[in-house]
């Protein structure tokens, strides 16, 4: 019995280290992409007049779907690259849930596999549920 407990703690500790690293690198990678896109953006349009940010134009701005963002990157559009960084940033905590799931599967913790799956499906509804209206 005692051996099982210590083995569980070991797995717990391992997955914690891994999640810590994954969160850190997610943020670092996202900031680097945003920085690169931002520098290109300033170089291309830094001298232009500021867009009318007091008026909300919503999706007319573009880059509100993965398709538009990929098109933007393939044409080296600065805003598209920044938006890719934004997507990586949002994906970082979502990925963390997926890694927690792996951890709970390794520990065979059925209750927490279920709980993590519930949280993951809420995220999926948010991403693919067409809630944008």
């Amino acid at each position, binding site marked *: 019995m005692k051996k099982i407990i210590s083995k569980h703690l070991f797995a717990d500790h391992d997955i914690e*280290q891994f999640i810590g690293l994954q969160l850190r690198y997610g943020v670092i990678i996202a900031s680097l992409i945003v920085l690169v896109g931002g520098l290109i953006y300033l170089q291309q349009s830094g001298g232009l007049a500021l867009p009318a*940010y007091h008026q909300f134009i919503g999706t007319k701005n573009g880059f*509100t779907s993965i398709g538009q963002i990929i098109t933007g990157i393939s044409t080296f559009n600065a805003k598209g690259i*920044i938006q890719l960084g934004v997507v990586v940033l949002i994906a970082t905590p*979502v990925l963390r849930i997926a890694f927690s799931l792996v951890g709970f599967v390794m520990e065979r913790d059925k209750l927490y596999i279920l709980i993590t799956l519930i949280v993951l499906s809420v*995220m999926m509804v948010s991403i693919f549920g067409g809630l944008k209206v």
Partner: protein
Amino acid sequence: MTILTFTLILLAGAYLAGLVGSLTGLGGGVVVIPLLTLVFHVDIRYAIGAALLASIANSSGAASAYVKEGITNIRLGMFLEIATTVGAVAGAVIAVYTPTNTIAILFGAILLFSAAMTIRKKNQEALTTGSNLSFKLKLNSSYPTKDGPVNYQLKNVGAGFSIMALAGVMSGLLGIGSGALKVLAMDSTMHIPFKVSTTTSNFMIGVTAAASAVVYLQRGYMDPGIAFPVVLGVLGGAFTGSKLLTRLDAKVLKYIFCTAICFVAVEMIYNGYNHQF
């Protein structure tokens, strides 16, 4: 104003927002919204989009350190994230039908509440007898201190879960991490020691904010031109803040900033009431 000037001023402002947010424990997102709306007169919807990103960046950056130290209660965080993510998605849906002035007033109210929560007395005691539900859900745990690991148990799981759902709705509606409400649920209601409740709350903020951020991204709330200086500025400020926190006593600073934030909150409520958004 050219894009370059706007970017540089906003970068400096976001840096200060991240610094203040990290020194007070309020989080950078809370300071970004008044900065963008009151100073730059940006539409509050763009401000909400940018603040959500700032919250995710802050939370993930700080959580990586706490998780590795083993203070964060991952099971508790995961369980309560059911409440916060469902709440956040609901909040993002409600937001479409909520006038921006109402959002501004609500934001001011939450800001006042957060300032009050920041300077209140903290729960340092570890509870030794938890409720039945806390055992069934395996929420009781221990955390490392200087004098070795301290065991703690918790109670009022149902009430804490409900407050978390409300925190999620506020997060989705206003684009903030609602750290204050999360700490209220864990610290005051479930009787979790302060260190565990703040780090676990911080751990959950990223997921909660991501749940509504996806919806807002698709709605065009996230403008690259605003996201770029805000994300980098807030991250830099939060990083400096975390380094400063270990060297200086933030207590006096906390009182000064919380007073300042109360003025900002009143201004948000006043402007919202007069339909300035």
